[in-house]
Structures are given as structure tokens and as C-alpha cells.
């Protein structure tokens, strides 16, 4: 089946009525949302509401039972999906950084383009050094993850994703494991990325940050999107009692 080519005026990511269960536990109960190119959206919600599950579906780390997800017009849960093509487009950063502990910062960044995309080693290295600079880690090229602070590791992880030149970045509570002092340096990095026009989907508990950076906020609870809107309306004018209660606890 040949879909009409995706163009930038269509949603870069389109999620339609997605359902996902783990055994008897239905975690996503019909989620729909669209993300346009260059948009930054934040997903917030209580623990266990399915935020991580949702963003893991977007790059096919987990499959779904019903509904559809497209990335640049490509069906994510299609048996003939070219996973490499999808994952090259969709970068992902995790709460626990998950760097490769046996590789230096620079090698962590270079490995996927060289191994997976079979790109030229020298070109990749040039790009990787630029990325190290971009995330403000000059001088740490040859450090192993075990020699870096959490915030530094997380910035290496961001650079590692960017090295694949993705069109969209998924961030799953990337500051949740960090000390308060180092949270800021990671948020600055993300903010700069967003300012450069990177499409971002962030799961976060940093409400101030969400308000500042997001074009649109989605609040999820027990597998559904309860309420969504631009930050100003969402934070100051929440309608749903569940949203109000959640914001009341957090703010």
C-alpha cells in the first residue's frame, strides 16, 4: 500500500484511539493526539497513568492492540515496518540515561551512526564532537559514563540520540533521576533543542518547565487524556476535577 507522501502541513505524529493492555491490565484506553512539525508537547499525569507506555509505542518499543500511530505518514504498527527507518526518525531519551557503560561519551554518541547507519567514521566523529559541544560537555569526550554525573550522562544520552539526526525526540522523565542542581543543565539543553525547531514530546513532572516550553499540554490519568490545551489555559483554567486535583498536589 502506497500512502500519499507525508508533507509538513500534516501531523508529524498522529496517534488515533490507541489501546494497549498488559495482560488484563488496560493501560491505554483510547489515546488520540497529533503533533505538528516543530511543536513541543508535554504529557503530564500521575504515576502509572500510561505516559511511558504511550511514548514507547511511538517508536515501536512496544506494540499496540488497537488504533493507529503514524510517524511522517508511516504506520508504526505495520508488520512490514522498517524499524530502523522509524527509529532513525524518532530519537528517545530515558529516565535512567541508559548509556553504554563500556564506551566513552564520544563512542556512545558515534556508535549508532557508524554501526546502524554505516556512516563514515570521520564524518560521524566530527558531528559527534559538535554535539558534545552543543550539550556543553567539551573535555568529557573520553570519559566513561561511570565517570560522569547524572546530568552529564543525560546530556550525553541526548547527544547520542541527536547523532542519528532524528525528526522528533521523545523524552521520558529525563530529569526525574537527577539532583535538583543538575536538572537545570538538562532542561537548558532541551530548551535549546526546542528553540532550534526540534519536534519534542516530553513526559515530565517539571510543571514550571512544561509551562515555559510546551506549545500544548496533555494530562493523562488511568489511560485516557483527561484534558489538554495550551499551557496558559491548561494551568490557569483547568476544567476537569482530576486535573485540578493533580495540579493542586504538584504546584
Amino acid at each position: 500500500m502506497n500512502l500519499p507522501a507525508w508533507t509538513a502541513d500534516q501531523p508529524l505524529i498522529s496517534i488515533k484511539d490507541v489501546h494497549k493492555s498488559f495482560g488484563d491490565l488496560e493501560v491505554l484506553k483510547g489515546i488520540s493526539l497529533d503533533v505538528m512539525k516543530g511543536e513541543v508537547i508535554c504529557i503530564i499525569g500521575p504515576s502509572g497513568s500510561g505516559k511511558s507506555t504511550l511514548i514507547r509505542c511511538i517508536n515501536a518499543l512496544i506494540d499496540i492492540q488497537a488504533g493507529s500511530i503514524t510517524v511522517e505518514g508511516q504506520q508504526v504498527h505495520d508488520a512490514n515496518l522498517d524499524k530502523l527507518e522509524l527509529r532513525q526518525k524518532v530519537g528517545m531519551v530515558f529516565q535512567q540515561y541508559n548509556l553504554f557503560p563500556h564506551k566513552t561519551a564520544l563512542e556512545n554518541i558515534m556508535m549508532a551512526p557508524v554501526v546502524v547507519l554505516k556512516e563514515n567514521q570521520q564524518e560521524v566523529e566530527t558531528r559527534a564532537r559538535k554535539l558534545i559541544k552543543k550539550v556543553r560537555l567539551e573535555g568529557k569526550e573520553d570519559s566513561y559514563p561511570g565517570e560522569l554525573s547524572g546530568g552529564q550522562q543525560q546530556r550525553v544520552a541526548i547527544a547520542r540520540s541527536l547523532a542519528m539526526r532524528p525528526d522528533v525526540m521523545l523524552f521520558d522523565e529525563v530529569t526525574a533521576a537527577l539532583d535538583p542542581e543538575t536538572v537545570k543543565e538538562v532542561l537548558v539543553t532541551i530548551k535549546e533543542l526546542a528553540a532550534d525547531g526540534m519536534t519534542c514530546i516530553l513526559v515530565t513532572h517539571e510543571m514550571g518547565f512544561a509551562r515555559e516550553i510546551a506549545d500544548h499540554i496533555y494530562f493523562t490519568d488511568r489511560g485516557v487524556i483527561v484534558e489538554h490545551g495550551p499551557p496558559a489555559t491548561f494551568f490557569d483554567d483547568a476544567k476537569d476535577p482530576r486535573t485540578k486535583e493533580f495540579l493542586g498536589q504538584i504546584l
Partner: protein
Amino acid sequence: MDVIWEFFRWLYDTQGINLTIFYDDLDRARFLKGIWTTIHLSIVAIVISLMIGVAGAWLQMSKMIWLRNIVQGYIQFFRNTPPLIQLYFFYFAVDATLSSVLGIKGGVLDGYGWAVVSLSFFAGAFNVEIFRAGVEAVPQSTVEAAEALGYNRLQVYRYVTLPLAFRVCLPALNNNLINLLKTTTVAYAIAVPETIYVANQIWSDEYNVLEMMNVVWVIYISLVGFLVWLMHKWEKSLKVPGFGQ
């Protein structure tokens, strides 16, 4: 050379300690050849058993149950039977069967060849288990990060899981490879001229069992010592800050 020759002649003449391997050219030559055979056999079997371990641990992650069952059957068979019987099985039964099936006269492989095969399978079975334990110790989240970067299953194994698994399982691997080196002595039973086999020839000819027994101890302690030293160097070179320990 003459000094050595004189010394060991003198040792024999005055003390009765007869180390022919130091002053008799024939004995020295066959003994050195025996040691070399042990070393050679060990190296080849270590390399092949490592390849079996790496491949077997990969197959054990397969989604196909029958494939995992075959690997499991292989492991159980070679772990739970004596290596000497495995060697006899290959050398006598498998060789004869293969020769008649393939119509080859005089056997498919010689004793040395079957010793390599048998010992590799023997140590390989343990290596599969050892690597699998190492693979299981690699956090799923690290594997997931590689998948999210587009690595396929083989690439994840080759570049992430295996290098980390190696670091975790080196102590166990160490033990198994030492065990393999020691087990090469079973090749004696099918007349592969390794260290014990030639030592036996020498002491039968020269009636110096006690002397040769002591020499053999020293040889094996040195060989195992060298292997341990090598593995430690390897372990050190693989050490990465903040991982393992």
C-alpha cells in the same frame, strides 16, 4: 648447551636423578613436541569453545523454542557426561559412522582432530551457560536504549550485550578455560602425543617415572599459571570505570 648437558649428566651420575629430557636429544625433542601439542590443542579448543559459547548464548535468546531446546539438549549432554567418554564417542563411534557414510577410508579425522572437536564441545557447553548468565545480567533498559537507536537484534548482541556480558562472566569463564586446559590430558587415551603421553613414553624407556612426574607437575602448573595471568590481563584491559566490580 654443554653446561646444561654436563649438569644433568652429573645429576644423574652422582644423585641418581635422571632427567633425560635435558641431555638426551631424542627425549628432549619428543617431550617438547608433547608440550607443544598440549598448548596447541588447548588454544584451538579454547577458541572454538568460545565461539560455541557466543553462538549458543545467542541461540538461547531465540524466539524459536525448538532451537532453544536443541541448545539446551547439547548443554545437558556435554555437561553431564565424562569428557573421556565423549572423546571415545567421537573417536570411535562418530568417526566410524561418518567414515562409512561418507565412504572415507582411514577415518575422517585423526586423534588430534577428534580431541579438538570433543574438547571444544565439552568446554563450549559450559561456555554457553556462562555467557548466558552474563547476557542475563545486562540490564534490559540498556538493551532497550540500543533498540531505540535502531540496532537490530544481532547488532545489540554484538555491540552491547556481549561486551557487557563478557565483563560480568570473566571469572566463571576463567575457571572453565583452566578446566579445559587440564582436561586436554584425556587425549592421552586415544594416543594423541600430548604432554602426558610423551612423558609416559619417556618413563617407560628410561625408568624415570618419579622424575618425569615432577616435571609434568611443573609443566601443568606453569601452563595454568600462564593462562590465569593472561586472563587477568584481559580482565584488566576490559575494565571500565563504574561498571562491574
